[in-house]
């Protein structure tokens, strides 16, 4: 749980396209992007990596692509 009691939204990423970057862009499917806003914290999940929280830093106008930053690297 997070975000004031709501279940935290999960965003799947391909770590082969991210590496150890702390800030990165990724495309979002419908279920990931509906209602998503800049500043929201999401749970980033990917194969063989512990889920990590990240904050939405930017979104394209259509919401299909976002820039995320892992919370450990951003302001709380």
């Amino acid at each position, binding site marked *: 749980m997070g975000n004031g009691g709501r279940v935290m939204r999960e965003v799947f990423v391909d770590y082969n396209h991210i590496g150890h970057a702390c800030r990165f*862009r990724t495309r979002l499917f*419908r279920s990931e992007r509906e209602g998503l806003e800049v500043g929201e914290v999401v749970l980033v999940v990917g*194969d*063989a*990596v512990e889920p990590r929280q990240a904050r939405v830093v930017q979104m394209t106008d259509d919401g299909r692509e976002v820039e995320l930053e892992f919370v450990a690297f951003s302001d709380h």
Partner: protein
Amino acid sequence: MTIILRPSLELSDDDDLVIHMGAGARRDVARAAIRNYHAYEGIRGGAGAFTVSVFAAIGGVTEPEIVEALPQRQYGVARHGDLRDRFTLWPTTITGTGVPDRVMAVHFDVVLPAAGFELPAGRAIEDLTDAELAALDALLGPSVEELLPLFLPRRAK
């Protein structure tokens, strides 16, 4: 992020290929391939492609370097010679990632066959419905299930 196709394959049969994969690899490999589809627009003239990332231990880049360059906790290794008759590999460099240039220079994409797939005109892959995504996952599944066992046993980082 941009995908650049390098001019030559640079691989021999005995070269080792490293794939990062965990317990959920079957599902996650297909999910990643679907998500990255549009990033491959224009590569070899296609509208997109379903691919799986691997890294080759060649040109002085070692297996430990490749493993350390990415955060996944598990990986597998296969010989190029065991893949090349079954899958097409593209020598590709992905820009704008956190992967060191030296390691990204040995990145390859294994292309998953997707015969019969046609993205409806005017639609983006990330706009597909859950049912359409499930059908796409089912289409890619057999190729993923053929590919991943070539990299077993799974090794811990």
